């Protein structure tokens, strides 16, 4: 490849990302700058909070779940006081000051979380929710026909398994502790964490050996 082509490629990329922002993008800038000018928020606070948001992802929740699978004492603490167990054992800060209730799936009980009113979600441990969690079909139907909703995610539960749906609020968030898959008795904690996906902690799918992520 010639040097000219290379330069051209870079110039093009730079132009594409520097276009005029949209109306709502500019509205965010206007609101933020006015609040900074009035000294109601600090000039670097938004940037810093973006970095906090970027530091949270399902991989964090997966570590919590894997620890609960291998350490019965931790599991008991997690189920008793979800937030303080995450804070003390993993140093996870609950920047939004929400409480966390961890719901354990068993052979007889399957938990599912939703926010019917909006999009409340255990962000400190899972990061931001997927779009479908915030949209009407999931919010409307999860509470009235959870088995049909689960089936759309490929999860078919036996009739004798009780389905419990927990509706999140501004102050109280839920996290599902999925069942540890059979055949993982010899797995390390890290290998177990790789089986725990976002959707298993929302409760729409079970943790499976086949769904293992490549350990990072």
């Amino acid at each position, binding site marked *: 490849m010639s040097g000219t082509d290379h330069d051209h490629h870079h110039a093009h990329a730079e132009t594409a990302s520097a*276009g*005029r*922002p*949209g*109306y*709502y*993008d*500019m*509205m*965010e*800038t*206007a*609101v*933020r*700058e*006015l*609040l900074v000018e*009035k000294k*109601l*928020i600090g000039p670097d*606070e*938004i*940037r810093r*909070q*973006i970095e*906090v*948001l970027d530091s949270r992802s399902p991989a964090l929740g997966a570590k919590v779940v894997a620890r609960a699978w291998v350490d019965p004492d931790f599991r008991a603490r997690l189920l008793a006081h979800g937030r303080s167990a995450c804070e003390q054992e993993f140093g996870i800060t609950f*920047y*939004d*000051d929400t409480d966390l209730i961890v719901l354990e799936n068993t052979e007889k009980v399957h938990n599912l979380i*939703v926010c*019917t*009113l*909006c*999009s*409340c979600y255990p962000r400190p441990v899972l990061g*931001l929710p*997927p*779009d*479908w969690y*915030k*949209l*009407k*079909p*999931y*919010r*409307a*139907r*999860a*509470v*009235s026909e959870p088995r049909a*909703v689960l089936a*759309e*995610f490929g999860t078919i539960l036996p009739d004798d398994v009780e389905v419990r749906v927990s*509706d999140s609020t*501004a*102050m109280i968030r839920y996290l599902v502790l999925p069942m540890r898959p059979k055949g993982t008795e010899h797995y390390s904690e890290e290998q177990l964490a790789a089986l725990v996906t976002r959707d298993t902690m929302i409760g729409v799918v079970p943790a499976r050996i086949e769904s293992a992520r490549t350990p990072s």
Partner: protein
Amino acid sequence: MTQTENLVKRLPNDIGGLPAEPILQTDHAMEPWEKRCHALADVLDFHKIVNTEEKRCGVEALGSDMVGKLTYYERWIVAFANILFRKGILTPTEFALKMKEVEARWPDDKTHDRT
């Protein structure tokens, strides 16, 4: 139940239990401004300027037409502006002037779709 009774009993956000379409497992990578908007929401909450429930109510107060047509973070930023006006923290005039100033930073009018 009459049509208007239903409107009174269910505000726009209160959709739990209603019939709805099948779930499409959609997601999108957040745009930079959407992430800034989310961070702004958190920071407004930290400083007790606008809390989560006020934000939710602010979105609901946009009315079903706007709630239906704006995207998730578009609703949030419009709700924030309205809440800040209502609380007297910002005035509509200073906001309008600031918008003009921000818009003027990008003189290229080609993508400027507002009149």
